[in-house]
């Protein structure tokens, strides 16, 4: 009798509801579902995982992201899903950008649940209309628009400062200004790239943008920031597509209250910064749990789940073979999928630094510290910031 116990951090709200769906489906398929939802900081989930592994009770399934998967794979304690993957033909349907992450050493150790897009720009429809502003396509446009908004006495960027949200914004800035720089600096942790003029320019742009924010950014949650834009108190909000789910759940309407577009890019074309939530499987001794892992992997990769889960979460399925025009996906989500495909075609697809899809946690953590400090402390110059970014990474190498 297949059993599972999944460790994840979606303890509340729509995310909790989405994961509850997974449980239901798993049980429908004859499994016994258990979950361990750790609320709060990601560290809490990871601490839990680590302590479980140390105590010899590695969880059957864990929600993990990005390079962490490879790291855990290296410890040799992850389970091999190649059998299921082969039987179900995952290689064919999973977005190619993800397969490298899910198969760190050539074997499937994780099942992707979704693809989130980070580089969304939400604009307040009302402000755009009132002030007669075009939704900006480039960073220069963006700055011009902001000047206009500020002149009109409104807040331009709604933001809640935190290391991850500051970095989310910076992801978009660097990516939009220089995609190669993004790849070198943020995906390969190349410290020369971090010290380059491009990075200094990006920091300068970030500094400008901090100026477009109000001074209440510290301690504000991202939902509060979102509401500011939706309620037309602020013009723009830069955030991932989970915003869509939350906004819709809170009763805001696409194209009425807000408009979603990709964040500005100076190089034209379609861009996509991606996150994929995935579930990693650890080796088990109990046959029930081993069976459960197979069943869970199948469930996660099943089109039904991918649809239900992603509708709830605002993201797009990890399977590329799903038609988003059906099943309750919003326009933003559909636009997201289209952009993804275009981006893949143009070769502009990247993974997100802010959301732990690129470099190891230790580099990411060090970099986020620098970025969030830069946002908080206006006395740091862009040059200093670029050097600090590189230094922080070099220390950890």
């Amino acid at each position, binding site marked *: 009798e297949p059993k599972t116990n999944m460790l994840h951090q979606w303890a509340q*709200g729509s995310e*909790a509801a989405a994961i509850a769906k997974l449980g239901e489906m798993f049980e429908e398929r004859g499994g016994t579902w258990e979950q361990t939802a750790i609320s709060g900081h990601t560290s809490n989930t990871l601490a839990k995982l680590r*302590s479980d592994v140390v105590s010899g009770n590695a969880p059957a399934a864990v929600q993990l992201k990005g390079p962490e998967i490879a790291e855990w794979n290296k410890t040799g304690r992850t389970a091999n899903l190649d059998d299921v993957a082969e039987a179900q033909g995952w290689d064919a349907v999973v977005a190619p950008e993800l397969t490298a992450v899910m198969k760190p050493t050539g074997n499937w150790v994780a099942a992707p649940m979704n693809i989130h897009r980070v580089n969304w720009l939400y604009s307040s429809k009302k402000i755009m209309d009132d002030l007669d502003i075009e939704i900006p396509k480039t960073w220069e446009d963006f700055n011009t628009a902001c000047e206009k908004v500020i002149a009109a006495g409104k807040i331009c960027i709604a933001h809640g400062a935190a290391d991850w949200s500051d970095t989310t914004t910076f992801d978009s800035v660097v990516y939009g200004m220089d995609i190669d720089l993004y790849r070198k600096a943020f995906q390969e942790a190349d410290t020369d790239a971090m010290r380059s003029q491009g990075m200094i320019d990006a920091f300068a742009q970030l500094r400008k943008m901090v100026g477009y924010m109000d001074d209440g950014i510290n301690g504000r949650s991202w939902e509060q920031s979102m509401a500011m834009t939706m309620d037309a108190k602020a013009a723009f909000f830069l955030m991932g597509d989970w915003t869509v789910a939350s906004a819709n759940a809170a009763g805001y309407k696409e194209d009425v209250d807000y408009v979603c577009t990709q964040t500005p890019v100076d190089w034209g074309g379609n861009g996509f910064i991606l996150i994929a939530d995935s579930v990693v499987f650890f080796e088990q001794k109990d046959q029930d749990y081993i069976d459960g892992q197979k069943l869970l992997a199948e469930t996660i990769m099943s089109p039904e789940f991918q649809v239900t889960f992603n509708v709830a979460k605002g993201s797009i399925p990890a399977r590329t073979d799903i038609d988003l025009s059906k099943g309750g996906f919003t326009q933003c989500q559909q636009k997201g999928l289209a952009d993804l495909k275009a981006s893949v075609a143009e070769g502009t697809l990247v993974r997100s630094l802010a959301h732990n899809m690129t470099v190891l946690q230790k580099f990411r953590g060090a970099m986020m510290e620098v970025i969030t400090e830069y946002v908080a402390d206006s006395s740091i110059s862009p040059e200093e910031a670029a050097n600090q970014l590189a230094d922080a990474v070099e220390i950890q190498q």
Partner: protein
Amino acid sequence: MAEVDTHIEFDPLSTGSLRRRITSKAIIYGLLVLFSIYYLAPLAILLMNSMRPLEDIVRTGFIDIPSSLSSQYWVEAWGTFCIGGTCEGVSRFFMNSLLMAVPATIISTVLGLINGYALSKWRFKGADILFGLITLGVFLPAQMTLLPWAFVLGSIGLSNTISGLVLIHTIQGLSFTTLFCRNYFLAVPDDLIKAARIDGAGFWRIFRRIILPLSPPIIIVTVIWQFTGIWNEFLFGTVFTSGANQPITSALVAFSGSGTGVRAYNVEAAAVIMSALPPLVIYVVGGKYFVRGLTQGAVK
């Protein structure tokens, strides 16, 4: 063991002219009221917001005169609020906390009493070194002990159980309880022990008949200290238990974290008050004895 409360203190303000006395009393009460506002504000804000509609809170913040009050959020918090993937409110986490805090408090207090008694009244070679070792435990940062504890719990099969937390809190608490009890018992005259030994009583009989009856003040201190400490601790609860096994403080940590989804502040405020209620009641009821016992035991 000086009785703190029977001490007739000298009151410099009871002499001198009437006017001076009145002004000084006014200043004293004025200051006390001011400070009380500082101390009570958070509690008042919690209480108020636990009954305000969410729209109010979102619109006008936490400090505002409520437009309407309702106890429905309390009901929700207790029974239906979604925490950690289940929507059963805080009730069962509350029970978990009780199941964790009560045994851990009792066991660590009992052991602390015995340890303190053995260390203070049967001084043997090395007793001071042992005592030093035990008190060191007071100061170990919890983060440091997480992984070793994980290993220990795993090897004895207590991962993700309330019993595991009871074990951790008992051992961590031993330092405090032993410290308190030992210092308290130092004030019990050695002659009592000698008299009892001559009377033919042994180690346990002296403990039961002489020491325990003298211990209520320090038992109150250790119980209050341990209970609130254990009840309010969240790191171990978060890391070593999950889901249905979590104690209430860990379950409510969502508060501080960057959780996603819309925040029901009013329900959370109600849940927070509930989670704080047991230690609060204990302090309000036992505060007097706590202070008295603490000065007899801790400050030496």
